[in-house]
């Protein structure tokens, strides 16, 4: 079989990073090719090259054997390449139909946008993926899942021959993920060539025919999915074998540190109550949108709860700001690293010391020597890779940025650390490191809350698991009840099997 699209010798660099170095990629009609690689391997970059957003410095793109250049996203779309990108790339102020058709809207005889055709087209496309959305709705008024459906409809609106999905399931719930798999099957039957990017091996093995592996911006290998094992793929990805994912835990649980009771928020959650102990890892499981992050953000003074009590070491504490939370010894490592965690324009050491300035300064005046000392301690502890401590944080790779963000919270010497989706979008290698590190923290006597949507992680790491659904605690699972089945049922609101 001949590939529809093939890339040869593609290189692309950013200031300080060679994101791609002479990589190759082939996509075949009616087949799903999985693109696999660690964080920063260059997967999203190749997608952007394929869709005309980046222009490579070297290499060629061929469609049906003819070389072609994409100067803009429109060129790529005209050539039949379409993508659902890793980040949502839609417009809140425009309607659903406009989001689907922006850039290639049907026109009337006078060259104006044909709104009726746009609306009916949108309805048809949405129906084809099983969605019934009013095409006139403002996109900003929709939920995350609906937005994702609009993004898919948009990708299908161009009559593409090549469809690219960059980590499409990261933001979707269980049910939606399965609908997406069905959709991929449909596209395959229509003879489209599909590039599927994912960190989840189970889904890769489930839907892909072929694989291509990148490591550090370089092509490592490709082949048929049926001829490879999970272990071999991991080996190719990281260049070494990763045998054990979850570290051994010493379940050495101490007295209660944090007690929450009757915690409510006007719109986001209600009746939250739990106890957290020294040396414990408490898992919070739920589907995306269950309200876990909001609870954690309220605990850390980012949002204001309407009522409820928080005790630390038995003492009632009122926390109205992150400042007070840090003083009380609770810190929150946010899920959205780029927006809430990292300050990319500031040097690494300033990022690390930001929440601890009260300690490193004297009477409000900075002491740089102290700051560097603190930054040195904690970055070493996390095995950070950087050229100097006054390097801008934004110049580091994502995984290393995450390390700095974690270092910055640890440097405050907290008693309770809350990690919100600490391994979301992180590759296997880094994941294991984070897990090991969490286990270490607990062993040192820190009380850890881990919010996660990944069942293996929740089960593998936690001492106990609290399941949330629609803003409330539905269940608390420990010991023998800690099975995937229990968690899924509780989170989805299905009654315990009779």
């Amino acid at each position, binding site marked *: 079989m001949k590939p529809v699209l093939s890339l040869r010798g593609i290189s692309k660099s950013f200031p300080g990073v060679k994101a791609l170095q002479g990589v190759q990629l082939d996509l075949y009609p009616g087949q799903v090719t999985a693109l696999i690689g660690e964080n920063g391997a260059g997967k999203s970059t190749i997608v952007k090259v394929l869709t005309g957003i980046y222009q490579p410095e070297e290499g060629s793109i061929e469609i049906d054997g003819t070389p072609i250049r994409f100067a803009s*996203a429109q060129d790529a779309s005209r050539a039949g390449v379409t993508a659902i990108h890793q980040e949502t*790339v839609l417009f809140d*102020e425009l309607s659903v139909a406009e989001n689907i058709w922006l*850039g290639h809207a049907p026109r009337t005889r006078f060259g104006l946008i044909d709104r009726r055709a746009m609306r009916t087209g949108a309805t048809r496309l949405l129906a084809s993926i099983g969605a019934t959305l009013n095409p006139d709705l403002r996109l900003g008024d929709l939920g995350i899942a609906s937005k994702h459906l609009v993004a898919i409809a948009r990708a299908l609106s161009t009559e593409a021959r090549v469809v690219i999905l960059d980590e499409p399931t990261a933001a979707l719930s269980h049910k939606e993920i399965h609908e997406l798999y069905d959709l991929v099957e449909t596209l395959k039957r229509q003879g489209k060539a599909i590039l599927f990017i994912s960190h989840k091996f189970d889904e890769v093995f489930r839907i892909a025919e072929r694989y291509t592996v990148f490591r550090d911006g370089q092509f490592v290998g490709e082949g048929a999915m049926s001829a490879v094992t999970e272990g071999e793929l991991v080996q190719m990805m990281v260049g070494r074998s990763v045998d054990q994912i979850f570290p051994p835990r010493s379940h050495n649980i101490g007295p209660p540190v944090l007690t929450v009771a009757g915690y409510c928020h006007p*719109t*986001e959650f209600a009746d939250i109550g739990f106890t957290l102990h020294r040396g414990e890892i408490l898992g919070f499981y739920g589907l995306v949108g269950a309200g876990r992050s909001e609870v954690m953000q309220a605990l850390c003074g980012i949002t204001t709860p309407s009522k409820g009590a928080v005790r630390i070491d038995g003492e009632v504490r009122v926390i109205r700001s992150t400042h007070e939370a840090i003083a009380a010894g609770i810190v929150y490592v946010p899920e959205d690293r780029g927006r809430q965690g990292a300050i990319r324009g500031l040097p690494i050491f300033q990022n690390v010391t930001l929440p601890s300035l009260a300690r490193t300064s004297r009477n409000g005046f900075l002491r740089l020597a102290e700051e560097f000392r603190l930054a040195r301690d904690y970055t070493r502890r996390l095995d950070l890779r950087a050229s100097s401590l006054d390097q801008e944080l934004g110049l580091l790779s994502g995984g290393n940025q995450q390390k700095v963000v974690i270092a910055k919270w640890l440097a405050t010497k907290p008693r309770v650390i809350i990690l919100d989706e600490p391994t979301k979008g992180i590759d296997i290698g880094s994941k294991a490191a984070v897990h090991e590190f969490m286990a270490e923290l607990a062993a040192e006597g820190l009380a850890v809350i881990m919010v996660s949507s990944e069942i293996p992680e929740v089960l593998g790491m936690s001492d106990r698991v609290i399941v949330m659904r*629609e803003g409330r605690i539905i269940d608390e699972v420990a010991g023998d009840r800690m099975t995937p089945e229990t968690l899924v049922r509780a989170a989805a609101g299905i009654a315990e099997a009779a």
Partner: protein
Amino acid sequence: MSILKHREALLALAILLLVGVVAARFPAFVRPGNLANVFNDTSPLILLAIGQMIVILTKCIDLSMAATLALCGMVAALLNGAGVPLPLILVLVVVLGGLLGAVNGLLVWKLGIPSIVVTLGTMTIYRGTIFLITDGAWVNAHQMTDDFKALPRAVIAGLPVMSWVALAAIALFTVLLTRTPLGRSFYAVGGNPHAAVYTGISVGRTQFLAFVIAGALAGLTGYLWVARYAVAYVDIASGFELSVVAACVIGGVAIAGGAGSVIGTVMGALFLGVINNALPVVGISPFWQLAISGSAIVLAVAFNSAQNRPAGRIILKSVEPR
């Protein structure tokens, strides 16, 4: 969309209320003739505000609009003095305005300099250029030909041409913004520049076009202004750029880009126009004018942001205790 409509309806109500209050004491104010007068008076503000709105939609701001107006107006007056026929003058000022806008646009697009810095600079450069080409001398009524002065005030079907130009611009730009790919791309670029790139829209190019449109509108208004007031000098319309931004803000254009409508902007301009025209009629000292429009701006901003605040998810409504 529903919020937007809502906001415009409220603004319309506010204007009606204002007119009503004035009319209660001075019925002559609501004579159609006078209202037409108010509209005619507000036309330059409307024209500029539409241009500014498009620029703001794309996450930029154009502080040089008033200076562009002044420079184009002066050039129109000088061309008139040199005997250039009126139709050609009209074409030339629009082109010149577009070129001045293009300079702004290119600096923003090709060099990535923030628009506020670019236009802060070109604002003084454009105005200074007027001084350079005239040595500061005024062009007065007696130095202009009659047909040059007559065009904006020529009455067609009961309204002066100046008003017709504003009405035409309102219609044209409503269609442009709602019914053409370019118009929608202004919203897209401002609403989510990142996503616009993924959609194949060049953010810089779109911003460039917005500046060109704003410049061309300012150029046309420059002629109208100079012809109507029958004078051209360095300082005409100085400080007008801020009224223009104010009209946009009152009209509900989001300063962060991506949201706003022609009709809202026009009403924002009319709101200021009515205040300016009503104050002397009601007998309030003109010294109050500044404070009143300032308060209106602050209130409008506070109001718009209160309306845009996300309502929260209200996820709890489905979790009644069983």
